[in-house]
């Protein structure tokens, strides 16, 4: 299982976010994308998911470009964006049930409740998520991670709004996934020890500096 990115370029408006970005990711590897605000971390993640069409370059999953495979790639992909992708009018259990069902997995309520319990939402399972705190909402979204069968996790700032307990829990979940032949790509501003497995780092800072220099040349 592998993800290969070749010569990726993304342009937003008039300015180039990054270009010539190439890397490869294998099982049991974790990639951490670093960079200041506005360097294109989120855009890169969205391009890797296929939500954003890169202006140049290819993203290849298992030797086939992701543009040419829809469902095969999406089956192996778990994406968590800035938004929690949960419905404020539904409760935590309903949200989790819908999110796992959309990913193609059917679980009994016992399993779903257990996952919510594990992520520290015991007692809040039946409250509308509108009444939950930011951190609890994030936990509802992350509960789906516990039940995901996807190999490749793409997480945009997963630690935002979480308390110490949840950060530790999420670190463990990520580490375990990487050890079990999984792959994780994430962005975070927090310096957290993530896994004992191999960590690949990509820094987008230089990329934008280069463009700024080009503009002034």
């Amino acid at each position, binding site marked *: 299982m592998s993800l290969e990115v070749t010569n990726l370029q993304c342009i937003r408006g008039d300015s180039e976010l990054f270009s010539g970005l190439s890397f490869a990711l294998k099982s049991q590897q974790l990639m951490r994308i670093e960079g200041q605000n506005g360097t294109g971390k989120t855009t890169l993640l969205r391009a890797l998911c296929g939500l954003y069409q890169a202006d140049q370059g290819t993203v290849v999953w298992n030797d086939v470009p992701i543009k040419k495979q829809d*469902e095969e790639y999406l089956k192996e992909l778990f*994406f968590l964006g800035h938004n929690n992708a949960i419905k404020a009018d539904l409760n935590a259990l309903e949200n989790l049930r819908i999110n796992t069902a959309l990913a193609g997995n059917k679980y009994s309520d016992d399993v779903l409740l257990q996952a919510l319990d594990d992520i520290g939402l015991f007692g809040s399972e039946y409250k*509308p998520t509108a009444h939950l705190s930011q951190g609890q909402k994030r936990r509802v979204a992350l509960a789906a991670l516990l039940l995901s069968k996807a190999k490749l996790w793409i997480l945009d700032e997963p630690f935002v709004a979480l308390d110490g307990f949840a950060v530790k829990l999420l670190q463990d979940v990520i580490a375990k996934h990487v050890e079990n032949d999984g792959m994780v790509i994430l962005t975070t501003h927090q310096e957290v020890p993530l896994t004992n497995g191999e960590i690949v780092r990509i820094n987008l800072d230089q990329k934008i500096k280069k463009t700024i220099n080009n503009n002034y040349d």
Partner: protein
Amino acid sequence: MTSPFWVILKRDLLLAIRRRSEIFTVLFFFVVVISLFPLGVGTEEEVLKKIAPGVVWIAALLASTLALDRLFSADYEDGTLEKIVLAPSSLSVAVFAKILAHWLLTGLPLVLISPLVGLFYHLPLNSIFVMMFVLLIGTPVLSMLGAIAAALTLGLRGGGVLVSLLVLPLYIPVLVYGAGAISTSMIVGVSIEPYVLLLLAFSLLSIVFAPWVTAAALKISLE
């Protein structure tokens, strides 16, 4: 029932039950527009009968554009639309489920309340049945075409007004044939079949193509 189609259909219906005001807004708008006309043009039976087919369809068109704005924008704002796009199954099917739920919540109630219009406008009983039937086969077209416009304008500022401007001209064939069928039903000895067949054709065509086009538009809007 775990196919994405049922998951999304059930989800949207559940959300609507939790937030009933959105359905009732559309329904009340429909009723209010319809009841304004007799106040403006007078209550003469012949006049009302003559304008009823047009009034009911125009009210239905306006009411359905009112609801379109929220079709995708709520899911867009909380990020669930991305989840749906990234689900490992056909996006067109998921979109079809969303449009179907939208029609069940905004189109079908109009059909069910339309006999009220018959009472306001002195329509004969058979015309009331014809009106219900053509609304039943015509309103899905409104939801289907509307979904395309809603997907295209997703995330734009002032998208709501733009949707109406985009979509109302496209509704003209439905208006012409839908109102035509009701008018014709009041003339003795003339068949309404051509109108009904054409409306059915529009309906089927839009059901086949609109989810597919909407799915493509959504992907563009999400970028």
